């Protein structure tokens, strides 16, 4: 397993990366520059740079959760491939002409954090873009620009046309979720019913989007299944399954990203905490055996992959450097190792129950290792060992070690 380059997260690198992203954001046509920052996306998600509100970013804002890397996209998937975005924006802008430039002017100086601008200008852009895209022909350079086939254009543009038409209502629903509005359920039912009326693709895309926006709220899937069951259309009846499959595949992808080593350990711990919360939200998704089986597989993958990365990092980044400490280790090296131990334990606990995390045999073994190594083998004082035990196993274990090691307590000395 590849561990992250320790030089990546340095302040200097972060600042350089943020400057690069800001420069790319200002380019009218991003193309190759966009590809350059693609490998950095997990890190960017962690850094959360302020993003200018551009025409393209506004166009896809309400359905951002449905956008996936082009390499992962397959025909029939409930998602929009990222490689198609730029060409679709150019297509819409070209047809809208002067109206697109008016929207540009309205967005000048705004960022994605400006919710009022998103709502106001988006309310003008989304219906117009939906109309334009619904009647657009496939651009001549489509395949060259997007690496997608001509039939893919039909599928992607049709799905996007439907979603743009619903974007206003989806955004309002997302705001209801954020404010825990009492009208949430009515609005949810109305949005899903509206999507159902626009056909199978709109229905499954909307359901997939809302399942992602409202993890843990069982009403989304229940209402989706109820609406699908009430139709005679077999394609519509399959909508919930397609949407749920997309959520599963996103979750699997998030797990792979979190455990791939592209993220710093701390960011991976944050990601695993979020993934665990999403998994907990799948508790009620027991409508079909294949769904139950997929959830079991995801949980098992999280457990085994977490354990694998934990053990690898523990060995490579903590045990090995501890063993190679000089006989009088400096404050900086000890603090750095304690920092790794803290990130490691946060990662360790992110995907597990507190009881199973505490009693993990690997942690118990690590404590034993700290306890039994001689001063020659491990040049740490009793207090330094107790601190590492405290970090990894808790203060009770650290205090028990201090007592057993016969370290004089401060109270005894004070007396």
């Amino acid at each position, binding site marked *: 397993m590849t561990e992250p380059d320790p030089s990546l997260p340095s302040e200097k690198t972060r600042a350089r990366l943020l400057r690069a992203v800001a420069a790319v954001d200002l380019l009218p046509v991003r193309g190759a520059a966009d590809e350059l920052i693609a490998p950095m996306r997990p890190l960017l998600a962690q850094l959360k740079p302020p993003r200018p509100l551009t025409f393209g970013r506004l166009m896809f804002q309400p359905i951002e959760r449905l956008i996936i890397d082009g390499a992962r996209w397959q025909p029939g998937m409930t998602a929009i491939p990222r490689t198609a975005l730029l060409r679709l924006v150019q297509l819409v802008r070209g047809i809208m002409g002067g109206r697109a430039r008016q929207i540009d002017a309205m967005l000048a100086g705004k960022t994605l954090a400006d919710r009022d601008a998103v709502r106001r200008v988006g309310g003008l852009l989304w219906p117009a873009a939906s109309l334009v895209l619904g009647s657009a022909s496939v651009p001549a350079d489509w395949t060259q620009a997007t690496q997608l086939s001509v039939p893919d254009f039909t599928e992607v543009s049709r799905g996007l046309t439907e979603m743009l038409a619903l974007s206003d209502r989806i955004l309002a629903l997302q705001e209801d979720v954020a404010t825990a509005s009492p009208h949430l359920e009515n609005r949810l039912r109305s949005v899903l019913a509206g999507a159902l009326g626009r056909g199978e693709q709109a229905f499954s895309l909307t359901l997939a989007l809302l399942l992602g926006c409202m993890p843990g709220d069982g009403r989304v899937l229940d209402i989706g299944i109820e609406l699908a069951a009430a139709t005679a259309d077999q394609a519509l009846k399959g909508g919930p399954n397609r949407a749920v499959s997309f959520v599963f595949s996103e979750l699997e992808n998030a797990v792979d990203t979190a455990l791939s080593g592209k993220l710093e350990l701390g960011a991976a*711990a944050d990601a695993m905490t979020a993934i665990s919360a999403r998994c907990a939200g799948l508790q009620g998704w027991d409508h079909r055996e294949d769904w139950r089986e997929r959830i079991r597989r995801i949980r098992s993958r999280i457990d085994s992959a977490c354990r694998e990365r934990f053990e690898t990092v523990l060995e490579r980044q903590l045990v090995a450097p501890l063993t190679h400490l000089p006989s009088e280790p400096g*404050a900086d090296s*000890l*603090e750095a190792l*304690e*920092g790794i131990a*803290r990130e490691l*334990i*946060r*990662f*360790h*606990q*992110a995907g597990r129950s*507190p009881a199973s*995390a*505490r009693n993990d045999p690997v942690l118990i073994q690590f404590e034993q290792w700290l306890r039994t190594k001689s001063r020659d083998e491990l040049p740490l*004082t009793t*207090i*330094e060992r*107790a*601190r590492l035990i*405290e*970090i990894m196993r*808790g*203060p*009770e274990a*650290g*205090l028990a070690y*201090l007592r057993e090691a016969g370290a004089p*307590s*401060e*109270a*005894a*000395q*004070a*007396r």
Partner: protein
Amino acid sequence: MASVLAEFSRLFQPTTFRERGVRLPLTSPVLAGACVRAGARTGGRDEPELVLPNPDGGDGFFVWPWRDLREVCRVSIHDVQLMDCIAASQPILPMTVARAAHKVAASGVAGRAAMDAAKNGAAIDEEMVRAATAFMLESLARHCQTQSFAALPEPDGETAAVTPLRRQMAALYGRPSNDVVKAIEEIAAAISVIGFGEQAEQARVPRLLAAVEALHGAVTERLEAMKGSRASCAEFMATASGLVARGARRWLAEARARFARPVALVAAYLAEPEPMTHWLQRADWLLNGWSGPCVRRLAGANGQNWERDPGDIVALVPMLPREAEAWLTPLSPEEARIFRSRPARLRIERRSHGDSQMLIAHEESLRAASLRMLGV
């Protein structure tokens, strides 16, 4: 729960500093803002008890005997050792708690940075006490040389080894030499924390006072630019820090003037030891707990972090008991109001062990910064 002695009322206003307790430099997130005070007396000792702000962020405080608290929440090794040390080194005063905190930090349980800073601070403190004691003895010796004593007290069994100076001091004050030495030691300890001579500003009280004054200046300067709840927090912090700084500065000037006449000071101490002891501790009590807000401002990026959420710092501003009113008079109406208000409260979230460890690391870095920058 049996361990809870009392939940103070919404309008809890401690009458004295001893009732409020001494603010503790703890590292466990769950004990943020805790004070320690003397609880039930058992076996000739005061059992320490903690006065904790309501962890839900609501009104009121909780009082827990220390030994019971350990059974219901996870407390860091540093905090366990500090509380055990406080329990063993009585009475519970800002000075004894500060010494215990230095000692525990110097053992390394709060990390290397805090250990190095505490060891350095302890060496400075010891040197200050030695120098202050030497100054007192030298002053008294000089004074004794100018006196003609009819007869020096004869050494008795206990004081057979006393030096001529001790016998002269006993004659000067008409008291056993041990009483005089105890007075000198207590006064010297007080001088060591307020400082004297060329190194005066390096002592603990002047350093902390300067930090509170700087905090007051920084907050006052930004008051007009702040709005809403942030403004009311900043206003509270500006008024409270200004009030405490003014009281401590006034006391410091008075103390330095009195310490310049050590002969009279010892006489005053021997005549009425209790009021003098309380007077000697006054600045320590007034400034107790302010290192937390000060170091959070100083440790922030360019000193500006507090502006984003002043509530975080304000929640740590120590409460002033009614006893302080007499020390700080005259009070403006705004200053009088702060004795009864608290614009921000602590809210302590339940966290996993891993997340708690990250917060403990942060507290340890602040602890090291406080020891390094403020000596406390």
